[in-house]
């Protein structure tokens, strides 16, 4: 039963992302700041750091699946989020082996991950021609606010999920299912 918790939580977060913008005050939406929510990605970081052990790659698998779902539901341009999320989560997965998982490390990995994934998305969208924002504009009006707001979300989630995911991760070792 427990193995269904993660996809269910991810699906709930995916759905919530669609109403995320309505929770922001209108005055913030009408400015030049383009805040994009990467909540699914933030939760994937938690999975990579706390749930996965050396032999499992659940975070990368979920990054592929839910990246594709985001593409389908919110952008109609397939593959962009899937590729960016999966690549970045794989990078995080590699980095977490070097560092011990406490709140500072998770925040640091979160910032690195958000910067890399959002820049990958920007890069692909620029190549495809969806956006023609100049690099300096992108940096101030999208990258900084996006990383900032998602970091807040990450810090809010930390107390709820850090310990729980570690426990779930240990459970799967005892049962011995690997991917």
């Amino acid at each position, binding site marked *: 039963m427990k193995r269904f918790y993660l996809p269910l939580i991810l*699906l*709930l977060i*995916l*759905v*919530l*992302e*669609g*109403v*995320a*913008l*309505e*929770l922001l005050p*209108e005055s913030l*939406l*009408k400015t030049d700041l*383009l*805040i*994009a*929510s*990467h909540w699914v990605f933030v939760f994937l970081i938690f999975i990579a750091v706390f749930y996965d052990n050396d032999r499992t790659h659940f975070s990368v698998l979920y990054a592929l699946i839910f990246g594709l*779902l985001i*593409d*389908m*539901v*919110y*952008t*109609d*341009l*397939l*593959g*962009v989020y*899937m*590729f960016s999320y*999966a*690549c970045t989560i794989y990078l995080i997965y590699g980095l977490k082996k070097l560092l011990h998982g406490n709140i500072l490390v998770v925040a640091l990995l979160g910032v690195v991950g958000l910067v890399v994934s959002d820049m990958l*998305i920007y890069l*692909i*969208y620029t190549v*495809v021609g*969806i*956006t023609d*924002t100049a690099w300096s504009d992108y940096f101030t009006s*999208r990258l900084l606010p996006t990383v900032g707001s998602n970091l807040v979300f990450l810090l809010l989630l930390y107390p709820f999920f850090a310990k729980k995911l570690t426990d779930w991760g240990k459970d799967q070792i005892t049962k011995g299912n690997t991917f």
Partner: protein
Amino acid sequence: MSFLRKKRLFILLIGFILLVVLIGFSLRDREELTIIEEIVNDTVGLAQGIIHAPINVVTDITGNIGDFKDTYKENRLLKEKLAEYKGLIYEAQELKEENDELRNNLELTEKDSMRNYKSIQATVISRSPERWLEQITINKGKNDGIKKNMAVITAEGMVGKVMTPSENSATVQLLTGFDQFNRISGKINRKGDNIVGMIEGYDKESKHLIFRIIEESKKDIKKDELIVSSGMGGVFPAELHIGKVQEVVPDKYGLTKTALVKPSADMYEINQVIVVDRAVQTDANPESEEEEGE
């Protein structure tokens, strides 16, 4: 170790090829979504509908508190306006009757008017978190008669058009996300001859729609003149409010004039929308997007 490196490189390459294939597939000018996309969209749409209800209540309450503050002032203003409107209603009724009579004389039915449309009520259930795309999702789809390229309006004016309908939900492209591929043929109503032109997309820097005037007319366009859809594009009905002129500037070559238009509808606070199905059908290729431009 070297084998492991090679394996990683291999996976990355496959991923990259997959990315290019998927993007190529979705950028292709496709008429319909794949069945998988439709199922996913509908399922997520269903969940969004459920989650959206309590959130709506919260935002409504905060909105109401703000409204209370202005109620008194507004009320006085509205009473004055109401008196004016009473006169207008009689006038409009008379004109309508006269119009009907004249139409009867010409043996035109109401159906033939490009103004006429069927409307489908819908609720907004989500907004794409990807801000560059400016898309919203509504809770009505093909089952309710929604088709690609239908206009979407609110009480204030036009907000966008249906981009990809699924069975029970549909994605709407907002006016703020329009580019040169999504043109609207528009006009400014004048006595005698109208000024016609085309909305050629949204300028993100100045935050205005760009209205290029096709025929160079002698008359100057003034600020605050209303731009409405002309119905000549073959997809949208006529007389949908688009926006008000803010500024008129000559274009790059000095041959035509361009008006910067502020959309009438609020693109950020959209809850209820009406999807508009034009009654007069142009049989010749009604789905084509180019037609909207010509």
